[in-house]
């Protein structure tokens, strides 16, 4: 099975040959890969070298944490890549960003109003959790859509709080 894997913007051709062999950009390496105790933490021995990584699943990416360094990765097989190429950069089209609570907490205050224009990096909302106030910022320029929470509200993890269109 062949994949195109992008790590921090760099592409790798990775082929899973069999349970013990993988080719990376044409170079075959011996691998021994196991999840530790069925946890999302993985032990990889590759040509004798021992690595361990946490893997976090994003919406369409995987974050791989190795030795304190985080690698943003995207893995696609050929079919997926073709589909994406055909669809064009889908992200630019459906440009709505939903601000979801990254953790359970208390909304301290909403700093924007519906219809307000915001720039990438503007603070949208302050959420308190674990005795810390956290500023949640807009990842894009746009206009604030519907605001579904207000100061004093408790929110659950991943609850939608507002959108930027």
């Amino acid at each position, binding site marked *: 099975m062949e994949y195109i894997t992008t790590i921090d913007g760099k592409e790798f051709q990775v082929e899973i040959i069999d349970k013990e062999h993988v080719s990376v950009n044409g170079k075959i*390496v011996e691998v021994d890969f196991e999840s530790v105790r069925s946890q999302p933490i993985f032990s990889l021995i590759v040509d004798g070298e021992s690595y361990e990584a946490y893997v976090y699943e994003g919406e369409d990416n995987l974050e791989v944490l190795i030795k304190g360094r985080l690698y943003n990765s995207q893995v696609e097989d050929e079919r997926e890549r073709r589909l994406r190429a055909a669809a064009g950069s889908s992200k630019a089209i459906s440009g709505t960003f939903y601000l979801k609570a990254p953790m359970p907490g208390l909304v301290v205050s909403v700093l924007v109003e519906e219809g307000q224009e915001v720039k990438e990096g503007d603070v949208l909302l302050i959420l308190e959790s674990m005795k810390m106030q*956290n500023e949640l910022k807009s990842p894009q320029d746009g206009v604030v859509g519907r605001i579904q929470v207000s100061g004093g509200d408790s929110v659950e993890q991943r609850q939608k709080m507002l959108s930027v269109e």
Partner: protein
Amino acid sequence: MFTKVLIANRGEIAVRILRACRELGIKTVAVYSTADRQALHVRYATEAYLLGPAPSSESYLKGDKIIEIALKSGAGAIHPGYGFLAENAAFAQEVEDAGLEFIGPSPFAISSMGDKAIARKIMLEAGVPVVPGTKGTDRFSDEELLKLAPEIGFPLLIKATAGGGGKGMREVKSIEEMPSALNSARGEAMSAFGEDNVYLEKLLLGARHIEIQILADKFGNVIHLNERECSLQRRHQKLLEEAPSPAMTEELRERMGEVAVQAAKAVGYESAGTIECLVDKDKNFYFLEMNTRLQVEHPITELVTGVDIVMEQIRIARGRQLSLAQEDIKINGAAIECRINAEDPHNNFMPSTGHISHAVLPTGPGVRIDTGVYSGTEITPYYDSMISKLIVWGENRAQAILRMRRALAEYRVVGVRTNIPFHQTMMDSHRFLGGRYDTRFVEEEFDMEEISEGKETHLDIAAIIATLVKHEQTERSAHVVRRNARDTSNWKWLSRWERLSK
């Protein structure tokens, strides 16, 4: 003399105090919120009583209920730990009034040091240098402060007199920013502390945050246990501390120690306490505030001096004289503490909640962990994000750093994100290795990506792992589809599920 202690706290510090009691043959009473029923402090204590629901205001801040439990259980003393009720003079007074021993200083010392303006005044009178700023304990109006500000000079800090944890604090670069900064600082102070009084302090640039640990008994004996270096902070929260400070000289240590002892004597201090100072580039030091309680970072002092600070607190509260004289206190080697917080250093230190499904602690020579969590613990949004303290000792600073590196590399926590990668990056930074950092370093100059630049990367390893994970997911979901096609086997899955869920 009391033989049972109620610990009015949770998490690692409750466990730390429990351990000291146990090793002194003293019984322990834990209190807990519903969120902490299975916490270690409840599991390890001799007795345990429910306070109330998870929010602190309904549980760990309920002073009256805690005193009631102490009386009911026959505890003779209350140890407040840090945070919660630890620096609440009214609570300390109520404990005393109930005929119980408060393991800490007198309500007078707590309240004197709790009002930052009063503390500054006392220190000045005792001959302790303070950070230049407004003097006296008057309530200054905005007008007065606008007049005083240029005399102090910019940049400066507006600080709430009742302050703590950076609340009601504003940095001001020029007179133009003053009015709105005053307004917002007062607003924040009012909502945090119920009063809006503020004062001004010069903002010292390039300064280090260095604190001196004090021990004082009921007989007026006061000693200090040397310094801790606490400059590595983010949003006024310490992240990493070390002892001794790489910036310290023997002469400065002696001067600061003497002054700290003087300061403690000035308020008739008793128990353990800390004098926090700023030290500028020219080794001038200024009193910042006194923490009238046990500090989070006390273990690094324990490791280099051999003194068990919590046991000493308990002995002092039991009316014993200090068993140590100043000349008994020596510094042996070096110690570092990394605060392990459930927060994501790759995403602006966002707190992370969840269930710890797998954990491996670093152990072995020279490593100490103080923690209240274990594999299986739920990290909730109700309390602060510190899940453990990783503390190492080494023969010297270099060895301590090497040991901390190996301990951080061994530490595994699955289920929440932690700031371990932050500490790993710090242990690799030239500035930290050289000991060349100040209180602004983490926020203004420390950049995880930048420091890692040029260091060994593992892009190819990441590519292999990501691909294998994705590949296994694909295989598995294909398998599930095939499985679902076989209706007849569902009963097998059911019985398997029932076995699993037993």
